[in-house]
């Protein structure tokens, strides 16, 4: 049951094959068994059971709120949740409890979905490994599954792989079958990157399609709530629920169309798939490249037009992304001064000293480093040279995409990451800044241009870790993008983690999962 897509579970719930409370308990159980992954910062056991009970009442009466009623979900811990701690994996907000729900969280709750807990991340979503949070790194569930253990001969506890980030907790929650879907946030790839490394579908919708109200910002002009799910169709249904205008976020736009399920028999004959040559970048692993070719070939064989295209300004994107990101970070982090909420230092001989020590104690080196460089970029004498220049290049990057889509390309096919997930020991050999530059290289251009992008898992690497490919589409063409993604999903045959014993103590449970899946599909 836990290994199903949520639509399958939704049907099981309606048919009474399982009750929301039973399902919730199963997931809570699974969360306990996979505690070593460190996917959750807060598990909301009590409220989850209460919500499940309420859902049960509705289902028994035959009046579910929708397909999500009773479905367990996880939320990245940078979305505000009313009366539930929201930490951003930072000491600064270690004990912060917001008085309101983020719009996207509220919409899921309104649908009767059951919140299991708050998922781990890099501090304030600054990172690409989920290794830089105040509550420790998140471990990739696949690095506990048989293929990885067998292929790499990993024996030691320390041989685990990273999840990618910054929404590593959300990806691990979905991948480890403790939640059917999860909210991530995506500023430069923070949803797609861990989605690819953990083998889940990860959607970054068009900027403005989903409300950011209640998402604690990293870069306001690029942040988008991300959706992580076990299937493209699940992601599409969640997108349909979350999308649309929100009066609390002035940057939202009306949804172009109501979105429910995707067509099951989408025909790619008439679409044109662009392969941007600039994404054939140094450091791209041979295996990822092979997957990229494989899927491109699939398209071609199915009659789609596949052509090489150029996005000439791509090479400047990551540098400009960092300038803009750090500048907004410096601005957005200014509010954390220990006065109204959050950590406040004991050292308070003057207001200024209190600010300084509060921020020194509350933020990690990564956050402080970005604030420092961001303030440097915003200095009067530097503003034109860095911020304004980066904005101009951002415009050129958006123009690159516009030109390509204007030339008849419907969707771009690229790798999501350079390779499969690194081992924690290897990943931490380099600092956060270097890793972010490497990891976000294929994902952040879509954020710079505000375009929808989705990562679809395609295969396991020789190490037994997932590889994902990315599709990027024109703004507000999220549905078409997902239809193409689903077409890939239907053909690549990516395995379910439940096919193996991934959790050290869950051999029996996995067997059940496998059986249930077989009977339900």
């Amino acid at each position, binding site marked *: 049951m836990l290994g199903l897509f949520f639509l399958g579970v939704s049907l099981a719930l309606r048919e009474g094959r399982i009750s929301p409370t039973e399902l919730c308990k199963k997931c809570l159980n699974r969360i306990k068994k996979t505690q070593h992954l460190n996917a959750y910062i807060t598990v909301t056991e009590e409220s989850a059971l209460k919500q499940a009970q309420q859902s049960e009442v509705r289902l028994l009466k035959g009046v579910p709120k929708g397909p999500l009623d009773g479905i367990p979900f996880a939320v990245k811990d940078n*979305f*505000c949740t009313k009366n539930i701690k*929201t930490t*951003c994996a930072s000491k600064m*907000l270690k004990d*912060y409890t*917001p*008085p*309101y729900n*983020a719009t996207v969280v509220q919409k899921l709750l309104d649908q009767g979905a059951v919140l299991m807990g708050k998922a781990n991340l890099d501090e304030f979503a600054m990172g690409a490994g989920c290794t830089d949070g105040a509550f420790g790194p998140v471990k990739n569930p696949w690095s506990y599954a048989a293929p990885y253990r067998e292929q790499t001969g990993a024996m030691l506890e320390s041989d685990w792989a990273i999840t990618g980030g910054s929404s590593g907790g959300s990806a691990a929650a979905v991948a480890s079958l403790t939640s059917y879907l999860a909210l991530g946030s995506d500023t430069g790839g923070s949803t797609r990157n861990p989605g690819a490394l953990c083998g889940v579908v990860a959607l970054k919708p068009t900027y403005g399609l989903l409300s*950011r*109200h*209640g*998402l*604690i*910002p990293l*870069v*306001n*002009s690029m942040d988008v709530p991300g959706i992580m799910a076990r299937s493209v169709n699940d992601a599409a249904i969640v997108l349909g629920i979350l999308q649309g205008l929100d*009066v*609390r*976020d*002035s*940057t939202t736009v009306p949804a172009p169309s109501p979105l429910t399920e995707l067509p099951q028999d989408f025909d790619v004959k008439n679409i044109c798939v662009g392969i941007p040559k600039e994404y054939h970048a140094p450091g791209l692993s041979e295996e990822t490249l092979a997957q990229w070719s494989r899927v491109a070939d699939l398209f071609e064989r199915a009659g789609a037009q596949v052509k090489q295209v150029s996005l000439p300004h791509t090479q400047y994107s990551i540098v400009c992304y960092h300038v803009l990101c750090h*500048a*907004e970070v*410096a*601005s957005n*982090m*200014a*509010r*954390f*001064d220990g*006065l*109204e*909420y959050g950590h406040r230092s004991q050292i308070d001989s003057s*207001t*200024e000293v209190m*600010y300084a020590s509060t921020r020194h104690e509350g933020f990690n080196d990564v956050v402080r480093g970005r604030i420092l460089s961001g*303030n440097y970029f*915003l*200095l*009067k004498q530097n*503003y034109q040279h860095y*911020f304004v220049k980066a904005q101009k290049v951002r415009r050129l990057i958006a123009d690159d995409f516009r030109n390509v889509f204007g030339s008849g390309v419907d969707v771009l096919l690229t790798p999501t990451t350079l390779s499969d997930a690194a081992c924690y020991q290897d990943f931490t050999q380099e600092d956060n800044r270097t890793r972010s530059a490497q990891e976000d290289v294929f994902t952040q251009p879509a954020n710079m241009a505000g375009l929808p992008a989705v990562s679809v898992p395609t295969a396991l690497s020789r190490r037994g870790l997932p590889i994902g490919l990315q599709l990027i589409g024109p703004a507000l063409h999220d549905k078409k993008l997902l239809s193409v993604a689903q077409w890939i999903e239907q053909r690549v045959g990516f395995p379910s983690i439940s096919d193996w014993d991934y959790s050290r103590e869950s051999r029996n449970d996995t067997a059940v999962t496998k059986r249930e899946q077989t009977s339900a599909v």
Partner: protein
Amino acid sequence: MAAFCVAASELLHNMKQISGFYPKASCVIRRIRTTNPRCDSQIQPRAKSTPQQLVGVVGLEIHAQINSSTKLFSGSSVRFSAPPNSLVSFFDASLPGTLPVLNRRCVEAAVMTGLALNCNINRKSLFDRKHYFYADLPAGYQITQQRQPVAVDGTLTYSLLEGKKRSQVIRKNVHIKQIQLEQDSGKSLHDDVHSQTLIDLNRAGVGLMELVMEPDMSCGEEAAAAVRELQLILQALGTCQGNMSEGQLRVDANVSVHRPGEPLGVRTEVKNINSVRYLARAIDYEIQRQIGILQRGGTVQNETRAYDSKSGFMPEPNLPPLIVYEDNASLPAGIDACQAVVVQKIKEGLPELPSIKRDRLVQTYGILPEHSFTLVNEDGLVEYFEAVLMATKKEPRKVIGWVTNELLGHLKQQDLSVSQSPISPPALAELLELQETGHISSSVAKQVFQKMWRSPGKTAAQITQEHDLGLVSDTAQLHSICQKVVDSHPDEVHAIRNGNKKVLNKLMGLVQKETKGRADPVLVRKILQEKTS
């Protein structure tokens, strides 16, 4: 941050002691008079003056709180003197994840103000963040309009009243560089005893219009007159209540001195002034101080806050560009006319502005310009004056004195507003009718006015009757009184008979004294003339 600049602080400190930190609302200064009755900031007498004379140059930066029921970017109420932190939304407290949502009413107020000040309204304007750390700025930045404000390039026309009786009206212009929308900050209250700072966020996020006036003024009186005119305009528009003592209108002045024709001197700032009168004094003080320094061979120091010059700006990423539309026809499809800001609609709703009102009063009623200033300066006084005129046949030029002297004098003495006057316009009109129709003399009319003031509700006729103040027109009675006066003042009678006719007035005064001002002056004059011929 809010520290006063240079030596003006010294003066302002003294002023505070005079005025109290927050003078009562009723203490708003209504007539502008400075310590220098003439706009004459030169330290040397004019006789010595040469083209080398130092003169003051004054520019203003004015923050006007927008009169709106809710804040600029949140739904919190706006109210003065509410309990601390009782009007604070999640956004106002900068809780993480909250976003600004622009209040249309504030935009309309800024557009309306821009139109009234002859500004160009930018069809597209932008919001920026201005960063600085201060305890009462919870986000660490203020959302303002640095790059592209909502209105630019306007003019404010104001008048100075000069001459002995302030009867000479001199019109002047000051260029308005821009009007920008921005957030107000909260308030910090420093408790030195416990070395604590207490923060009140009620004001945080209230909408402000920042108006930048170019350095086109030369002294405190001009600046004060410009501010007063702006205050009247804002009040007429209803876009700002304009009460300086409540901080609804805050004025910072940039002051420098130079010799005409030469580049401007180093400027200093005079900040945090809470009345128009003190503004004039503080500016003149600062001009004198700078001239003094230069004449002693010194240099003026600019003590601008160091971080101001470096503070970073950045586009506000959470607000799309602010678009205003020319008219309903220019609205793009799908935009609700009720939700959009339409310039034409606002233009049509513009009320009569103070300068137009003054011109109209002078032309319609033939009153003196200075009287039109007095009328317009006082909230409700024009309406009062016009209501009196409706109910009396007396000429406006004879009514005006009653309104601007008797009525206003009494109101000021008791610190009342026009609407609180115990004498209503019809009641005053009735009194003036009694005088006009010869039932009472003018001096009696003033007595009746005072009695009416003290016993509201009683009509002029009632008071006249009760106190037997009606005009004495009984010829026999007046003959007898006149005879008594003539008999007891032989010297005066002699003088009149010798041709000094003016002395007759003294006898008339004596008769009026005898009758407590009730004698019909025309009759008395006739009788006295007969008796002294």
